């Protein structure tokens, strides 16, 4: 065996080892689960419903508010753009626990916004709206950054051609920009979904109740023990993963550029 073969085998060996490291925890879960005694703890069903329902709501809000922002950032050169980038990165990089504390101080019962909203009947502590807000804040920056990159990848010329062919800017957006950005947008939606569903730190501070899957896992672990989390953990994977996978596959199956 010569030196060249050795050199080419080393990266392959390291790659295999790294992949094994990645997959080890999942194999571990499969091994430690008591398959013959697979049962949920009390309240797990409710946690699943809470997580799915409110994450979907948060996702809709994120898409509705984040898409115009992403589009605007991708298409309008601004002088103070670095400042907007900094704000997005700040929101993205703030640790979840710290973000939870920030939200509590702003929207909590004694916070400036929370005080006003409470008068209007909207309570943003330990409530369904608080849960959705927590997910919205934790996932929005990821969505905006990914969606902006997707829109930036659409050649501007094609949008302009759509205009010269008699389409309004809105129709040009729907018929040219959206289809051409769909792969990146699908990734952005999937990323936001996983972020929202898996959010723990922010939710823990502002919306301990209603309990979604992440907080319920934590509660089960504290009250009952490690064995009690496995069934809910399986469900967690089952509901968190399909959307990104379906979106990813759907975007790839259609004919792309």
């Amino acid at each position: 065996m010569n030196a060249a073969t050795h050199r080419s085998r080393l990266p392959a060996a390291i790659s295999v080892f790294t992949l094994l490291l990645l997959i080890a925890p999942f194999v571990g879960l499969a091994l430690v689960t008591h398959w013959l005694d697979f049962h949920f703890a009390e309240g797990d069903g409710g946690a699943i419903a809470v997580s799915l329902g409110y994450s979907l709501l948060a996702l809709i809000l994120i898409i509705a508010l984040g898409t115009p922002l992403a589009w605007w950032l991708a298409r309008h050169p601004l002088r103070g753009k670095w400042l907007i980038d900094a704000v997005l990165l700040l929101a993205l990089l703030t640790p979840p626990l710290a973000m939870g504390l920030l939200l509590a101080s702003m929207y909590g019962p004694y916070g400036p916004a929370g005080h006003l909203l409470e008068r209007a009947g909207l309570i943003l502590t330990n409530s369904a709206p608080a849960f959705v807000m927590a997910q919205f804040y934790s996932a929005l920056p990821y969505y905006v950054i990914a969606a902006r990159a997707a829109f930036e990848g659409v050649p501007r010329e094609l949008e302009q051609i759509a205009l010269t062919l008699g389409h309004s800017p809105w129709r040009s957006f729907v018929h040219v920009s959206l289809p051409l950005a769909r792969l990146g947008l699908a990734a952005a939606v999937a990323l936001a979904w996983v972020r929202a569903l898996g959010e723990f730190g922010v939710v823990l501070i502002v919306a301990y109740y209603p309990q979604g899957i992440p907080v319920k896992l934590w509660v089960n672990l504290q009250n009952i023990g490690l064995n009690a989390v496995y069934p809910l953990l399986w469900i967690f994977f089952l509901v968190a993963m399909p959307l990104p996978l379906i979106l990813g596959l759907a975007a790839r199956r259609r004919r792309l550029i």
Partner: protein
Amino acid sequence: MRIDYAIEHPVALHAAFDVEGFTVLLGASGEGKSMLLRAIAGLIPAKGEPFGGMPAQDRAVGYLPQGYALFPHLNAWQNVAFALRGPQRREHAMQLLERVHMAEFAERYPLTLSGGQQQRVALARALARKPQLLLLDEPTSALDPVTRDDVIAELIAEVHDFGIPALAVSHDPQLAAVADRLVLMHGRRIIQIGTPQVLYANPISGAAARLLGYRNVHRGHIEGTPSAPRLMWPDGGTSFPIEGHAPIGANVDWMIDPAAIRITDMRDALPDAIPASIEVRHVNGRITQLGLRCGLARLWATVPDGMQVPESLAVHLSPKAIRCWARDV
């Protein structure tokens, strides 16, 4: 159709001329030709007629940008149908594809089509909008050199067939030569307008001659006496007699037809012959042109049929064949 447009940003430009049949606006790169088309299409802010002040989607223009910009996510007929509405859109798109001889490629996606085929789909797409004016940005730049003459012929035949005035901007003299009408642009100004016959016969300046693709356009200045003027050619490092009355000391652009250059053996050269060496031999069918190095410059000379090119050669520039234009700077 009369075009009169003034642009201020990103560079100032004003252009006014008529578009008749297939009109080519010929100018070097960086003259703002593409910008002018984009202004007429309403894609950049500008003042002018026609369509002044209208948003892009309301202007009846068919705009074909460089590279044609077909929608990659739509196949050929869907691209053509993009501007169409209603239940008949597919049928109508197919009719347009048939007119540009692309019906058999209706289901193909743009990436699988050649440059010329993409151009025809883009033309059909632009025509679907029922434009009053076609705008073509460098229509020959993305074409395969082997087939481009045929593609250009086809394009012009189609434009005539549809009967819509077309404005093509280009720096390609080959395209200029087949236009119905030519507009020359230099220094962000229009310098000459007319038919190709007139412009090729009488370019208004050295810059115009260069745009039209003439070889052997050089700079120089007039020396000697009014009765015996000589043209000093600094790049060639030499001077030679010319005919006519040129103001002594004037800066000029001058030109000579490659066929008017006499190639001789160095040993039997005339007094005003210029020594030259062969750089490149350009064989095109029965005509051979030589790229000759004279000092720092290059002269193109046509080799007469059956002539044996001497090893050490000189060229003689006939005073009658030299054409001079006064130059400002």
